[in-house]
């Protein structure tokens, strides 16, 4: 993908990358009788910013948890660059090139910003290397400090950062690991419009050499920074691999987002119970 994507570009289809690096097929997971995800298919191509949207409880974070190994799926497969991810331990999946952020930015507050980045960058080091003192600043750490704009606070404890800066630090930490697939869970939650723009630019920068899957609620943020969009609703794919324009024009998606308030909770669980039986039939 070309570098001009660093600026907030309108949505586009990329015909040069037909082969999806991330292939999710027939993914389903049940938590104690509750069908959180049902038969989810998802493709993401090299270098695209793929948004995963949907109302609360749609299963977005669960999907991220499955890709990163935190949750084991009941059915289906996740293939990344032709390697099956399900069944691997979390830290192995990271070594396969998949990084993730958390809904609430998780950084090591007792360590300085530079130390946070340095630890992230050292993840391929053996124990013997880790037992040596860090000397100097790795180029990846310097790059991350530059890109995230945290250069001036590099030696401050991460606990002293503002909310937005913590999010950028977390993305910066992932950036030092040079992942090939990055999963960001609500990166702009609680941010000011200004911070959202900066986060979006950062996501665009990351996407230069990496596929980014963003879980987001914020429709405006999606409109500005998404290449492709998948809409989840009640654990099922409502709209797969669409452009922003297609999603905005889709009446069903509109219904889910706007008509959501009219839904009563009971119907949701009844629908979940119904899907439960249908998947058993198909399986």
């Amino acid at each position: 993908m070309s570098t001009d994507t660093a600026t907030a570009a309108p949505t586009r289809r990329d015909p040069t990358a037909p082969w999806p690096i991330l292939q999710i097929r027939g993914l389903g997971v049940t938590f104690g009788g509750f069908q959180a995800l049902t038969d989810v298919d998802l493709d993401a191509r090299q270098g695209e910013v793929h948004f995963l949207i949907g109302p609360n409880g749609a299963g977005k974070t669960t999907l991220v948890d499955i890709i990163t190994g935190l949750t084991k799926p009941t059915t289906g497969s996740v293939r990344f660059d032709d390697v099956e991810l399900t069944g691997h331990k979390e830290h192995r999946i990271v070594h396969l090139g998949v990084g993730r952020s958390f809904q609430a930015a998780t950084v090591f507050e007792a360590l300085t910003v530079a130390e946070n980045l340095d630890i992230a960058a050292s993840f391929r080091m053996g124990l013997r290397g880790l037992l040596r003192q860090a000397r100097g600043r790795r180029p990846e750490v310097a790059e991350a400090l530059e890109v995230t704009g945290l250069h001036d606070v590099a030696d401050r404890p991460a606990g002293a950062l503002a909310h937005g800066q913590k999010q950028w630090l977390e993305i910066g930490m992932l950036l030092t690991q040079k992942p090939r697939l990055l999963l960001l869970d609500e990166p702009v939650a609680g941010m000011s419009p200004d911070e959202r723009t900066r986060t979006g630019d950062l996501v665009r920068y990351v996407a230069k050499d990496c596929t980014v899957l963003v879980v987001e609620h914020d429709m405006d943020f999606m409109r500005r920074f998404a290449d492709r969009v998948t809409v989840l609703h009640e654990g099922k794919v409502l709209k797969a691999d669409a452009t922003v324009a297609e999603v905005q024009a889709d009446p069903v998606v509109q219904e889910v987002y706007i008509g959501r308030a009219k839904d009563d909770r009971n119907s949701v669980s009844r629908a979940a119970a119904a899907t439960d039986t249908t998947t058993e039939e198909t399986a």
Partner: protein
Amino acid sequence: MNTSTDTTGAAKAAPAGGTGTPGPGWFKRRVIGTKADVVPRITFAVVAFLLIVVAPGMLTAFRLDLLAKYLVFAIVAVGIALAWGRGGMLVLGQGLFFGLGGYVMAMHLQLADAGPGEKPMFMSLTGASDLPGLWEPFRSPVFTLVMVVALPMAVATLLGLLVFRSRVRGPYFAILTQALAAAFVILLVGQQDLTGGTNGLTVSTFFGLDLAKNSDKLTLYFIVLAVLLVVFLIARQMVKSRYGQLLVAVRDGEDRVRFLGYSPTTVKVVAFATAAGMAGVAGALFVPIVGIISPTSLGIVPSIEMVIWVAVGGRVSMAGAIAGALLVNFAKTELSEAMPSGWLYAQGLLFILVVAFAPRGLAGVGDWWRENRDRFDRFRPGARTAAPASGAAAGEGA
């Protein structure tokens, strides 16, 4: 202290061709260090001078013996500070590892006292006919010295792999370690033929040193001091390394560490096993100094006391842990001499005070003062306005 100072230090040292080269700035860089290093380094020099020169010269043999015992406890404390303060693993059963090291050493010393081919004295009382097979390998001094460290570390590694992999942490981990210490005591008491039961094992020599002779006791004191120094330097290197940062990271955000591609289990096992090894070494040195090891010195109560020393001294700081072990044990001796039943109450009070007012212990008092100075200034006329908050919560001082 922070990476930027290290960076400049390394950048200057590199062109000079190696760290040991005495150049123009060598003394300042290596001995005095950066501004933040000055106070710890002066403290280190003063304490080293007191322990190496003043204490052996001024103290009676009895007091020096006590000091040696406190220094042994300080070795345990360093391990606890590493596992608990840095790694967030509240180890409430260090008595187990202390006991393993102690019994390994005591078995060898008893066999050495008995002479080649002979049984230890207590076995003639229990009526054992042959030396049990478990004892036989401990005739070898080399095997014994290896096992003093290796056995506690192996047990801790095994335990850690089991426990940390199934993501047992927090109070569950603490209770588990404590239960193991209790179980170990029951095992020792139950296997009287093998372990001497509640009486424990007594020793009178230590690798040719006569433990009744004052000059040999002085040698032993210096051995303990040297071991403590080595243990302190190992812990300090670990704390200052990337691994040390990773350990703090696991303490504060285990999931984040996992999703950065590290196995938190490995990180924790290394710290836990190191702490166990240190406790083992301490147990082994405790035997010749006190002359006996028995279940009473490694059950639940001693294990909790070990944690209290570290809490009082400051659990994130290795030096604080050493100070805590020395001061609390000194206070215990002094107070017990003056008022035999008073110590328990005093210890309880001390623990409450530390938990309530100085959660970072003695080593954290300085940081706490810097952070809260303006609160007190408010009550004075001409108060300065709010000072910028400084100092990481990790407390970087080793």
